[in-house]
């Protein structure tokens, strides 16, 4: 029994893909728990201290890892179970936490239930997010926000034919951020502004399930409310930067913007399901009626493009609506035990309809009021039929046909009330179809070995964008070999898309993914887990843009080439040292080797546009993270743990002149205990 239990734990340990050093995954206390009255209890707590030491770009470290210093409740677990399934108030309490006490990623998961009466599930999560936005916005879009998510779900009579559901979810984001505003000169710079993010979304749900005559009906009604009250300000003088071919003396001295958005998105969903011996049916209707009210009040003082005093006031108000609906009907047939045929039809409809009134006063000149409205409608009908046939125990086939028809229509309008007949209406519509065929084969030549090959080929008409699916195919395969102590698998997947729209321009992409992984537990005290993945993408798209030294002219002979050639690897080994200690060592690496070039811009490139595009065709970098962890059993109920994890991020070329390289040591020591 003990050997078997150790083997199970050993196999679990072998497969730990955990690449975060803490919390410690080891067990403490009796896995069977202890008896207290009519209940069985297991519990453990891990408290300790985290530390870090960062060298180089702290912003990138915070964006990637963000672990700090301080005391933490790194993890905890509590289970309380009634032994006979007839507890007085509850039969089960399960509580797990991670990272509480200032880790950047914190979570609590709670389940409380009484058999047959109720089940309550709660999750609470926090993410401390930081992003310097250096490469995408020159550092002007920095974010340092905290997101808190929580979900509550109460089910009444969970084992009955009629069940009731009540739920509540909340998503809140807050914290400081930088953004940009463009003022006075439409050809000018984006000026940094400070924002204090305040966003909140609350959802309430009520529903019921009923089983009757072999059918199950699910009804859910939901109400949600969203508000964004993020203000923006600027304090101080911002000097204009250099521009090409444009005199720009613009300065923003004072900036204030209030931009509240309040809305709601109530909806309902109904689902009918049945499953018989030879057929099954699932039908769903979901509807949401989104609505947002908004206002914008902006005032700016400063210096204009040509050096004069300037001011600007903008007031915008209006609302936007989005009723959307999704209908699905799935019918499955099981004519024989070997054959399954499933047909699925869906209808999705989004109708986004918005209007806003825009008023502007620019340096004392009232530019008047303009009314804008816009409609975007997306109606998609899809149908797919899949066949799944097992010819023999060792071989099976599957295949199918998919069809989609999507209509995208827009209507844009603009009215300036001061001018009669100024209404402009533009209506456009495009309809796309995709048809694709899928085929695959499953093989099981031996009990432990499974092999799968599949492919898909598709054709689209009128793709909306130059990089959308047009003429595409995918090929894939995987092989798995699984024994209790040894698991091996490898996969290959290739996707190819060639888009040739109606104009002279076209784009092409080709991705290939190869992976292999293995886990081996030769003995109970040692296990190893390794994986390797290669992600290869090369794509190119024809471009059309304006550019040039001095006068900007239309350039239509350049291509955007992008080549990403990523090798990623993982290695983890676990050793049990006697009966007292566990040692884990892991290593992960992501290495994009690019296209092998030695410099971002090949030597001898004199055309400045070619040089610019060359510099972003590939982005070679290495990101690696070794870790080690030791866990020592002090007593059956106490373990001491210590771990170290290193992060190294190294860009080979940098982007647009920015390098964000860093390396960091992080670590922790903790006590894992049960009482």
């Amino acid at each position: 029994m003990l050997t078997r239990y150790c083997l199970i734990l050993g196999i679990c340990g072998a497969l730990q893909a955990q690449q975060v050093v803490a919390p410690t995954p080891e067990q403490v206390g009796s896995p069977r728990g202890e008896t207290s009255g009519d209940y069985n209890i297991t519990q453990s707590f891990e408290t300790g201290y985290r530390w870090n030491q960062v060298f180089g770009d702290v912003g990138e470290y915070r964006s990637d890892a963000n672990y700090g210093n301080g005391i933490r409740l790194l993890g905890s677990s509590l289970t309380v179970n009634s032994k006979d399934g007839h507890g007085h108030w509850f039969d089960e309490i399960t509580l797990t936490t991670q990272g509480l006490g200032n880790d950047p990623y914190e979570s609590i998961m709670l389940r409380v239930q009484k058999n047959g009466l109720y089940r309550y599930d709660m999750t609470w999560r926090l993410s401390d997010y930081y992003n310097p936005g250096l490469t995408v916005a020159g550092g002007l879009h920095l974010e340092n926000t905290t997101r808190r998510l929580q979900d509550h779900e109460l089910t009444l009579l969970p084992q009955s034919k009629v069940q009731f559901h009540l739920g509540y979810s909340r998503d809140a984001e807050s914290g400081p951020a930088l953004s940009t505003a463009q003022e006075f000169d439409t050809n000018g710079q984006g000026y940094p502004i400070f924002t204090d993010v305040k966003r909140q979304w609350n959802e309430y749900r009520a529903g019921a399930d009923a089983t009757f005559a072999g059918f199950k009906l699910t009804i859910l009604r939901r109400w949600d409310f969203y508000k964004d009250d993020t203000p923006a300000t600027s304090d101080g003088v911002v000097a204009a930067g250099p521009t090409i071919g444009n005199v720009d003396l613009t300065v923003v001295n004072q900036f204030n913007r209030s931009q509240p958005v309040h809305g709601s998105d109530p909806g309902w969903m109904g689902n009918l399901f049945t499953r018989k011996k030879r057929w099954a049916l699932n039908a769903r209707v979901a509807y949401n009626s989104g609505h947002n009210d908004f206002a914008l009040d902006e005032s700016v003082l400063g210096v204009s493009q040509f050096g004069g005093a300037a001011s600007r006031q903008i007031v915008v108000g209006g609302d936007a609506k989005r009723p959307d609906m999704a209908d699905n009907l799935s019918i499955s047939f099981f004519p024989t035990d070997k054959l399954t045929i499933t047909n699925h039809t869906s209808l999705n409809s989004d109708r986004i309809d918005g209007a806003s009134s825009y008023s502007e006063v620019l340096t004392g000149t009232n530019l008047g009021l303009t009314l804008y409205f816009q409609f975007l409608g997306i109606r998609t009908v899809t149908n797919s039929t899949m066949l799944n046939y097992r010819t023999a125990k060792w071989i099976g086939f599957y295949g199918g046909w998919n069809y989609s028809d999507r209509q995208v229509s827009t209507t844009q309008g603009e009215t300036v009330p001061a001018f009669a007949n100024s209404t402009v209406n533009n209506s456009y519509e495009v309809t796309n179809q995709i048809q694709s065929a899928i085929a695959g084969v499953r093989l099981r030549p031996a009990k432990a070995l499974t092999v799968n090959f599949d492919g898909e080929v598709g054709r689209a008409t009128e793709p909306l964008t130059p990089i959308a699916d047009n003429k595409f195919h995918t090929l894939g395969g995987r092989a798995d070999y699984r024994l209790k102590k040894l698991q091996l698998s490898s996969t290959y997947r290739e996707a190819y898309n060639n888009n040739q729209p109606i104009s002279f321009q076209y784009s092409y992409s080709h991705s290939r993914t190869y992976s292999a992984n293995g886990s081996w537990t030769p003995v109970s005290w040692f296990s190893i887990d390794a994986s390797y993945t290669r992600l290869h993408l090369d794509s190119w798209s024809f471009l059309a843009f304006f550019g040039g030294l001095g006068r900007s002219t239309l350039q239509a002979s350049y291509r955007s080439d992008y080549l990403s050639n990523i090798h990623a690897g993982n290695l983890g080994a676990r050793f049990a040292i006697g009966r007292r200690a566990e040692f884990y060592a892991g290593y992960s690496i992501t290495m994009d080797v690019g296209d092998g070039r030695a410099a971002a811009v090949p030597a001898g490139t004199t055309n400045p546009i070619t040089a610019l595009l060359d510099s972003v065709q590939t982005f070679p970098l290495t990101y690696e993270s070794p870790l080690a962890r030791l866990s020592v059993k002090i007593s059956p109920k106490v373990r001491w743990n210590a771990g170290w994890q290193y992060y190294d991020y190294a860009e080979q070329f940098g982007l647009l002149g920015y390098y964000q390289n860093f390396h960091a040591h992080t670590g922790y020591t903790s006590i894992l205990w049960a009482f």
Partner: protein
Amino acid sequence: MVLALALGAGALASAQNQTAPAAGGAPGSGYVGSDVCKTCHVDLWTPFFKNPHYKSIASGKEPPERTGCEGCHGPAQAHVAARGGKTTIPRAFSLMKPKAVMEACLTCHAGNFDKSNIQRSEHTERDITCTNCHSIHHSPTAKFLLAKKQNELCYTCHAAERSQFEMPSRHHVNEGFMQCSDCHNPHGSFAATWSMGVDSHMAEPALGTESPCLKCHMDKRGPFVYEHPSVRVEGCQFCHMPHGSTNAKLLRRPVVMTLCLECHNQGGSGTRNQGVDLQSSIHNLLDPKFQKCTVCHVRIHGSNADAYFLR
């Protein structure tokens, strides 16, 4: 109303408390009851009171074919008479075909809303069945009887995704903030299959109708007066790699300039049948300020105040 429901449920529950757990089946049915099973399978029985399936025994109201060990494994009379052996168990899952395993589990779980699309799940197509991911007797997880912690379980097969979650820009799944099932339903979802070649059929829509990303990224949900059509029509993954990327902000390209220009080149059919808009001539790409499009077009996911997403 909640109180009334709870009180009513309490009355039902108290009736359930007067139970005869692990009762055997009717004579001749082949069912012997879980009490017989535990005679030999002590190791499985001892912790079984923590197992969600124990409810079927505690209830005392379920018929023998839905109760305890035999609820899943079938009547055990022949197995007992043969004094053990896998082949004498009517449903020995390790010997069963994947479809038979799924059918056995669906006997009770078919009605669960989250499994209502299991017949069209890509896992089902590829013979990935319940016991590939769930460990009924030895689960180390607090919920759902998973064979391993959720992300590690998914990584067992999805090695490419595992590598993406270890890239510098990523959703923090390994760190414990998110789980794969926040965005995916491994049992199959209602997601429409528009871009068949690349999209997962198992992405779980937010609010039943929208991109799963919008479950958390509420500020991108809108509706907006000025929608960015590619966001709404093609989805977030058109510009972002949802699992992880070597590029900032999970972008598909290292800089936004090429990301935007690959569409805004007047190619494609577009909503206007003349291609996606070309940028205006004032945008001189050699000017550094025009190389980072989102510095000015700050509301790129949609705006209420400006058609060009400037505010």
